[in-house]
């Protein structure tokens, strides 16, 4: 049934500023840098409250000014009446850029062979031209931590802004060393080891970690004493974690394991540590809060870890931890659907965390955890011009994201998904050629 709806067509024109900007058909869009004035919208600063009828001036890649009555000068003016300005959202756990097609091994670059490979750099392996990147950033997620996975120390994760043609252009100032803490949980329903076997494996793995950490500590001491050392890249990288130059991102989920991990952090006097995963964090929230360790948790849209768990255990996890005093950031753990980050935050908000805290969990909190809150995570003068404009609450699915800026570049609001939509909404030829 061929249908041509004029109303829809005009609505589309409104939805896609690309069209209303006098776009020439076939022209390839590029990110534009320059001076922009986001005029008269509601600015959700995250750290300084919500400012109505306020403008934001973006210049030289930075937020130059926030306020009313700012002189536009030669800036491109974007009318933000009835719109909202937010800081770019940060996903603190993804594989973005490290895999293209999930089932094709040739495109998987996140898991190297070997148990102790902290020297594998995610940053250099990130594909800046991954199709998933434009798909992600038009949703307002501007920043993502790309994390290797695999063995005990799978590599070094890197925080990237989703704009740039080389990894270095995308890199935005944070690296961390993930560590997969030995687990006494089952890997999945296909894991048929007996309870005793699992415990034994976990004990041996912990013993192994302690040996490796000991070795890295020795390496660090020798390095600091300027001793001559033979080439040992794994220990060299791990020594940075021992020294505290790079934080450990400890992936741990089961309640028992979380407690063991906290003990281990204390015992080894790890200088900087963050717990990631933490799907059973709500069971031991007070202990995590007492230890003063920050947490990156998610995805929120996930099944409970136990059959006896209440059905919304994963939805309410971030909220419960936050109430107990834990610093909580939210991640998707995804690659091609990192754009669902705001929805994960939305569910966390609905099931106990509250909208304000859920927003912080994907903006200022990860920025602080990664030590990049000097330029990301909120709308403050002097921070990076990494913001987006939406026609409503970005957690709501009805909301459209209108403009996205990353490091001062205005991002073309297109992706392959959108282009396919434009081509096929009304196919030509249609049914008959």
């Amino acid at each position: 049934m061929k249908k041509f709806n004029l109303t829809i067509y005009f609505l589309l024109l409104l939805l896609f500023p690309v069209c209303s900007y006098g776009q020439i058909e076939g022209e390839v869009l590029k990110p534009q840098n320059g001076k922009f004035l986001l005029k008269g919208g509601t600015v959700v600063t995250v750290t300084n409250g919500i400012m109505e009828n306020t403008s934001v001036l973006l210049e030289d890649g930075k937020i130059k000014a926030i306020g009313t009555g700012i002189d536009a000068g030669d800036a491109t003016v974007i009318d933000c009446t009835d719109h909202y300005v937010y800081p770019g959202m940060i996903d603190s756990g993804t594989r973005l850029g490290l895999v293209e097609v999930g089932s094709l091994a040739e495109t998987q670059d996140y898991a190297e062979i070997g148990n102790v490979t902290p020297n594998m750099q995610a940053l250099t392996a990130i594909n800046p031209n991954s199709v998933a990147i434009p798909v992600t950033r038009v949703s307002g997620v501007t920043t993502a931590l790309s994390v290797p996975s695999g063995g005990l120390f799978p590599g070094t994760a890197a925080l990237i802004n989703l704009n740039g043609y080389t990894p270095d252009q995308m890199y935005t100032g944070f690296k961390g060393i993930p560590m997969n803490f030995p687990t006494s949980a089952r890997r999945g329903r296909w894991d048929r080891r007996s309870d005793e076997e699992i415990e034994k494996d976990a004990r041996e793995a912990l013993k192994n970690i302690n040996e490796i950490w000991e070795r890295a500590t020795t390496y660090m001491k020798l390095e600091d004493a300027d001793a001559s050392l033979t080439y040992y890249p794994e220990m060299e990288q791990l020594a940075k974690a021992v020294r505290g130059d790079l934080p450990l991102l400890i992936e741990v989920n089961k309640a028992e394991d979380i407690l063991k991990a906290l003990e281990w952090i204390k015992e080894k006097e790890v200088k900087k540590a963050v717990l990631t995963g933490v799907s059973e964090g709500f069971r031991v929230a007070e202990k995590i809060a007492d230890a003063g360790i920050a947490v990156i948790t998610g995805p929120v849209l996930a099944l409970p870890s136990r059959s006896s768990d209440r059905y919304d255990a994963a939805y309410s996890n971030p909220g419960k931890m936050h109430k107990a005093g834990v610093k909580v950031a939210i991640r998707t753990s995804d690659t091609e659907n990192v754009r669902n980050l705001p929805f994960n935050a939305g569910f966390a908000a609905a099931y106990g965390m509250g909208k304000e805290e859920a927003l912080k969990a994907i903006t200022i909190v990860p920025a602080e955890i990664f030590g990049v809150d000097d330029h990301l995570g909120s709308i403050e003068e002097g921070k990076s011009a990494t913001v987006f404009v939406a026609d409503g609450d970005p957690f709501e699915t009805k909301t459209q994201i209108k403009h996205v800026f990353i490091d001062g570049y205005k991002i073309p609001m297109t992706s392959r998904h959108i282009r396919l939509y434009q081509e096929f909404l009304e196919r030509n030829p249609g049914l008959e050629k």
Partner: protein
Amino acid sequence: MKKMRKLTYIICSLCLIATQHLGAQTPKGNVLIKNATVLTVTQGTLENTDVWVQDGIIKKVGQDLSASKDAETIDATGKFLMPGIIDAHSHLALDVVNEATAPITAEVAIADVINPFDVGIYRALAGGTTIAHGLHGSANAIGGQSITMKYRYGTRNPSDLIMKEAPRTIKFALGENPTRVHGQGKNIQPRTRMGVEAIIRNGFNEALQYEKKWEAYNQAKGQKNSKAVPPAYNLRLQTLADILNGEIIIHCHSYRADEIYMLINVCRDFGVDKLVFTHVNEGFKVAPELAKYTMGASVFSDWWAYKFEVYYSTAYNAAILTENGVITSINSDSDELIRHLYHEAAKTQRYGGLSDEQALALITINPAKQLGIDEYVGSIEEGKQGDLVIFDHHPLSVYAVPQMTFVDGIKQFDINEDKDDQRLKVSPTERVEPVYLQVEEESCMHGVELFTEGTVLHHSY
């Protein structure tokens, strides 16, 4: 007087016997939900409206209703009421998903392997899903017969979960999955998309031959002094013949536009018009064809890039299909997503600007049509079954939290009253409850690991 008593006694016992013979008559409930914003789906939104369910059927929709004494009254002021959500693609609560040892297994029936103890059923109800289409997996070009299930959680009898009014359905699969399992895994056809078409055509043609043989025998044996000998019985070919006779609705797992187009043509050749496509990530590329020749498409909200055949997908798929007149539904194919299909449907408002009505239809009346049960469920109308969900916010808002779910007028989920541990069966030897790091979601390729070593196929975090 004595005769009367005897008669009454006889009638009563006959009634009792009658009800016993009706077999597992599933329980039906009565409830009166008052003063809600009723999202009927087919007849607009009704403010401050009551819905009265009696014996499992919606008896009246209106204002200031009063019900019979045995109906619990629920005050839904400020709340939203919508029809129970229908998931047209699920593998939840099934002990086996794939009989992956042959490329055509039309003879197997998912109804044989329902597991009523799966706590996932309760979790789906807690997300407003009341009906799910339990499907055979996608390992085979022609898979097994699926079963439409009503989530009557709490029963020990798998037959109680079967929606008796639902028509027969069967699973087909095209593309990478059957070619990987059979062609690559066992070196038997199909290995290519060409082979998938050939296998399906072979199946249909052999079924026609089989039918002819039996027709000939049935005619001959009725005659006097018949020497007719019965041909061999082949349940597989019999089922395929039933498909050709329009008795079974095909739900076909497919991704690429060309394979969708291929099956549309094969079905047209054999006169089969009960065809629904599922997943159909590239459906938007053949939307006009889908609209004209099929019973619709059941899609993901935004899954893509996990296999090569879904690399060129778009989250705008559902919107494009809807705008082109295809009966579109959004499904989960996941024990996790089935719990928030209202949120998945809402994504079509971001990706394509569908209206509230259009978005809600994707998880109610449209999947009902695709399963052939729209006469009974899928909207809030007098005469339809009492499958209802109460939300505290509009279901298309990300902040919506389902409050109560009713199936056949019986409350199956209540956020305030239900206890946390909803397991029906517990192992007596479980010393420590297992904690799963990655709760494996039932997906289309469950059970085929033997044939497909190497790559992980289910969409995982």
